[in-house]
């Protein structure tokens, strides 16, 4: 351990990356997919077709709610944005004592999706992209708070792994342009470096801002230093305004179109995304209107409150300052909520690079160590475990996501607990790949796993076109770019997995002397691999190998 700074950082990079790599892989993959969570939800509810005018939609929504839930405590109307389609409405019944106040989002007994004519559409029940988004920080099958601590802990490791990765990397700029294929470990290292360095600002940003999104959980001590009671902090930073009480006198609700017009004017033309009405039909009704965040860098959803009868703007104090602005911008940059389609794809591709970076990093660990094993044909238990975990995670999770999409199309539409069955399908397939990896040799497991994943992804657009009238051909003909992009992405993903399966199939492990030969073609001394490292080989892991060998 008494080695140079860079060597100790290489050591830290290797181990902090390995220990939490599998969870990080899952966090990165689902987070990457979640950049399109709204689009995925749209795809997973194919019954919904596009909507035209949002003004008309508002009238329909109010009429529907007046009939369905006139006594509700609150109505909520989500207006169709460019990203999502359809008007989603929900209502919160007046609470009776001892009743559970929180309801699951998308519960069909208190929510509906309306079509062009204001009728509720019978859409299949699904968590859609939101499940993948929530899995990204809540994981699944475990209490949310534990999961968030696990995720935060792993994210902190990730931050350390990234910063030590940079420190380890002397020639960061050269490696940016270096990808040596068909060179065994070198190629894995280059692949790791290229995906890491290419999107480095993204990785640093996404990791740090990820910690900031949940910082009130991880780091409450800044607040505790200034406030005896955290509630008074939240009241200062996120003022909720006066709590109103139902008056009991009925009064007609102000036309919501007027409110939208006023709010849009106050926001300089920016559109609202959400309207909620508290105590509708009562003379104490209030209307909260929230601005759309698309195109806004600061994630605080600016909202205005109007009187529900007179339509007058009600005063509200909003906190501002460097702290809250920094936090809001960081959270919004993390989630990319402000971004349009092009930027969103860039986010997605950077996320894919991050996922590959973690995957190649994990594989690199085993590739690098296999040759140094006492008997490479019969590795010890820890090594085998890591190999199996690699296959199970790197192949199993993507295969599971494909199964999640397939289950959405294949399960009976009016099945009970349908969303849960969809989610379970994902974990069943994921667990299946794990078990398969345990039973097969590692190489066979990689090949068969990749092929299975590829088949599942190929099946998604096929099953979609068979079970709905919104197959790829129809989508292209109808200029339905969301559905078309989804199906094409599935096909491309399948192609990548077929390609990977083929690569592993044709792969013959480089024998140990090959490495030496590459460095010194004329004198193939066995055991000289580490001693003959070229200057160009100085990248973290290799430095460490050299250090280990020379220190003896």
């Amino acid at each position, binding site marked *: 351990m008494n080695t140079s700074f860079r060597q100790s950082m290489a050591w830290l990079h290797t181990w902090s990356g390995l220990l939490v790599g599998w969870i990080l892989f899952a966090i990165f993959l689902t987070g990457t997919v979640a950049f399109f969570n709204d689009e995925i939800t749209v795809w997973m509810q194919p019954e919904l077709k596009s909507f035209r005018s949002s003004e008309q939609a508002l009238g329909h929504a109010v009429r529907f709610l007046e009939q369905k839930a006139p006594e509700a405590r609150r109505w909520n109307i989500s207006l169709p944005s460019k990203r999502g389609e359809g008007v989603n409405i929900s209502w919160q019944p007046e609470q009776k004592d001892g009743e559970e106040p929180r309801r699951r989002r998308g519960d069909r007994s208190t929510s509906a999706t309306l079509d062009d004519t204001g009728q509720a559409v019978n859409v299949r029940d699904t968590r859609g992209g939101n499940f993948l988004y929530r899995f990204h920080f809540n994981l699944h099958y475990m209490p949310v708070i534990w999961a968030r601590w696990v995720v935060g802990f792993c994210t*902190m490791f990730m931050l350390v792994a990234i910063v030590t990765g940079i420190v380890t990397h002397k020639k960061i700029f050269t490696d940016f342009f270096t990808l040596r294929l068909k060179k065994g470990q070198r190629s894995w290292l280059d692949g790791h470096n290229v995906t890491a360095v290419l999107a480095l600002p993204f990785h640093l940003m996404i990791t740090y801002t990820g910690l900031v999104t949940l910082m009130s959980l991880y780091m409450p001590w800044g607040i505790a*230093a200034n406030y005896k009671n955290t509630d008074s902090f939240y009241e200062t930073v996120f003022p909720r305004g006066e709590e109103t009480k139902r008056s009991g006198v009925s009064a007609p609700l102000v036309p919501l179109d007027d409110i939208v017009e006023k709010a849009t004017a106050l926001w300089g033309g920016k559109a609202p995304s959400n309207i909620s009405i508290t105590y509708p039909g009562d003379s104490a009704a209030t209307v909260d209107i929230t601005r759309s965040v698309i195109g806004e860098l600061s994630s605080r959803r600016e909202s205005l409150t109007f009187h529900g009868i007179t339509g007058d703007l009600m005063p509200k104090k909003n906190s501002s300052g460097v702290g809250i602005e*920094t936090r809001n911008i*960081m959270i919004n940059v993390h989630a990319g909520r402000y971004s349009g389609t092009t930027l969103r794809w860039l986010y997605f591709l950077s996320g894919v690079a991050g996922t590959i970076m973690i995957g190649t990093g994990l594989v690199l660990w085993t590739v690098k160590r296999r040759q140094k094993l006492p008997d490479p044909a019969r590795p010890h238990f820890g090594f085998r475990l890591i190999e199996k975990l690699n296959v199970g995670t790197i192949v199993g999770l993507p295969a599971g996501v494909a199964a999640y999409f397939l289950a959405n199309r294949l399960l009976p539409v009016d099945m009970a607990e349908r969303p849960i069955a969809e989610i379970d399908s994902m974990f069943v397939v994921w667990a299946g790949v794990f078990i398969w990896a345990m039973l097969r040799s590692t190489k066979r497991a990689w090949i068969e796993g990749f092929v299975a994943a590829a088949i599942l992804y190929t099946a998604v657009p096929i099953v979609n076109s068979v079970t709905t009238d919104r197959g790829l051909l129809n989508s292209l003909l109808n200029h339905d770019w969301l559905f078309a992009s989804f199906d094409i992405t599935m096909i491309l993903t399948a192609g990548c997995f077929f390609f990977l399966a083929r690569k592993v199939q044709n792969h013959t492990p480089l024998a140990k002397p090959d490495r030496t030969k590459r460095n010194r073609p004329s004198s193939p001394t066995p055991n000289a691999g580490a001693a003959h490292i070229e200057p160009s080989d100085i990248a973290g892991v290799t430095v460490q190998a050299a250090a280990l060998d020379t220190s003896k």
Partner: protein
Amino acid sequence: MTIKDRLKITMRTAAAFIGGYVIASLGAAFLARFLPLSPDQASLMGAILSFAICTAVVMWAFAAQSITKLWLSMVVIAAMLGLPVWWSIITEGRL
């Protein structure tokens, strides 16, 4: 790896985990108390910056030459951050 090496790694890891979180937390509290901002904004900035502090401490835990010195320095830094916070809370109170 000898037992001595394992012990060293354990000591460094413990320093990284414990020292990392404790110093980051005290750093957050220190910034929250002494940044020239309103208390709510300073509290947020302290928390935001604490993750950078944590990263630096973890790296230091594995880079430092002497483990004894590392632990001693960590205690000194924690005290330098914690005592002023404690004193200012005692004298000025919290909201």
